[in-house]
């Protein structure tokens, strides 16, 4: 039985970077248990949260993600012993950096979801999707993608004429 579908004005794109041992299995459990969660999330599987470079997160935003979720094993449960401990520090630093350049940190969610926590996966994804939906599309990085930088402003009639004649 399907829940009634609601039409929204805005469907956010959420990219989820997950570790294969815990969160991916957790999401799989949610699926096999027939739990419903927003289809906005695109799951990308990694060996470990320690493999998830901050560059991936940045690139997701640049290429059109409105929200990013990073999820892996609970501390102490890492398949590679310490990958998520290292990731935790790296993400704390990266979060601070993004905050400092002016990115709204509500769009970036980190979580620990184990292979047994299908319910928690549904909850995390639903929360983030609804939060980002309320915030609207993320303009910052996407706008940058479409901008060009000129060494000087087109501020004289001659330059303006030359510029217009190009197009």
């Amino acid at each position: 039985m399907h829940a009634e579908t609601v039409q929204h004005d805005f469907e956010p794109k959420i990219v989820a970077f997950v570790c294969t041992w815990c969160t991916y299995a957790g999401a799989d459990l949610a699926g096999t248990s027939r739990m419903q969660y927003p289809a906005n999330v695109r799951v990308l599987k990694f060996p470990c949260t320690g493999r998830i470079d901050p560059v991936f997160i940045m690139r997701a935003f640049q290429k059109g993600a409105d929200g990013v979720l990073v999820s892996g094993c609970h501390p102490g449960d890492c398949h590679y012993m310490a990958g998520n401990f290292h990731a935790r520090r790296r993400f704390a630093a990266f979060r601070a950096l993004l905050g400092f350049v002016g990115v709204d940190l509500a769009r970036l969610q980190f979580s620990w979801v184990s292979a047994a926590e299908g319910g928690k996966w549904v909850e995390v994804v639903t929360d983030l999707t609804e939060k980002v939906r309320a915030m609207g599309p993320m303009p910052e990085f996407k706008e940058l993608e479409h901008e060009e930088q000129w060494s000087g402003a087109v501020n004289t009639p001659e330059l303006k004429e030359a510029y217009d004649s190009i197009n």
Partner: protein
Amino acid sequence: MNAKAQKIHAASIDPAYYQAVTEAIRLEAVKLLKDETVVAVVGYLPGRRRGTASPALVTTAEQAAQLIFSPACANNLSVYLTKAKKGVLKKGRVAIVAKGCDMRALAGLIGESQIKREDLHIIGVACAGVYGFDADRSQPVSAANIARKCRECTVHLPEGADVTAGSLTELSGLTPVEAQELARIEAMTPTERWAFWKAHFSRCIRCMACRQVCPFCYCEQCLCDKNRPQAVESSPRPAGNTAWHLVRAMHLAGRCGGCAECERVCPMDIPLNLLNRRMAKELKELYDYEATMTPQEKGPLTQYKEDDDQSFIK
């Protein structure tokens, strides 16, 4: 040499002080080369114009007698010891002239196993400050033309050097311009901050001077130069520029020694050291880590504790 600690008021940094340091460096460098303790000395020689200096590798006692230390000696020489500048140095022990901020870079490189302490003979300089990048060099260094990093310097006296030239311990009466700027940016709303950095990053011409001058950017293949797959767009457009500066700040987090060379060499005057300082501050608050003049085995992002803060994780 290190006879008496002095306190100097910034309004009047005596040019004679730099002369005294110069003499001490020459004495030491000549001695080291004469008795063949080292094969070369990395130091500063006078530049061709007045009020300038250029980094130099000297191998003879005659050349060593020309070495100087002046307010123009801003370069962090430790970059010449890294593998990014491969071939600069021959085999053997090398002496290097290092200010306090350069000492932190040396300590960082030793900690990252890039250089060995026993291969170095560090001639520390008790530095009274260097010129800012846009300073009037016809005047002696003063509160008006001192570099921003020197205004808040906490490492005037290098620790752990083999020999120290000069004896100054602190400067006073300088306004912490950079800390004020950092506080101003942190007080902005996220939208204003984004606009601030967007304006700065958009001007970047991707000359990569910040990378080339950084002692910690010694990777033989930079992530940002790779194109299969491409992590960071290489053309000087706002998108790629922002990505580059974020990656740079992230890769230096917990490693940067705060020499502010990136900011000095930037032809577009992007305040890069603000990013470095912000990250250093964050890592100090979170993990109580600071770049120091003594080598540390591990940086804050290469170690962990089981009870690290995870309040931001669901």
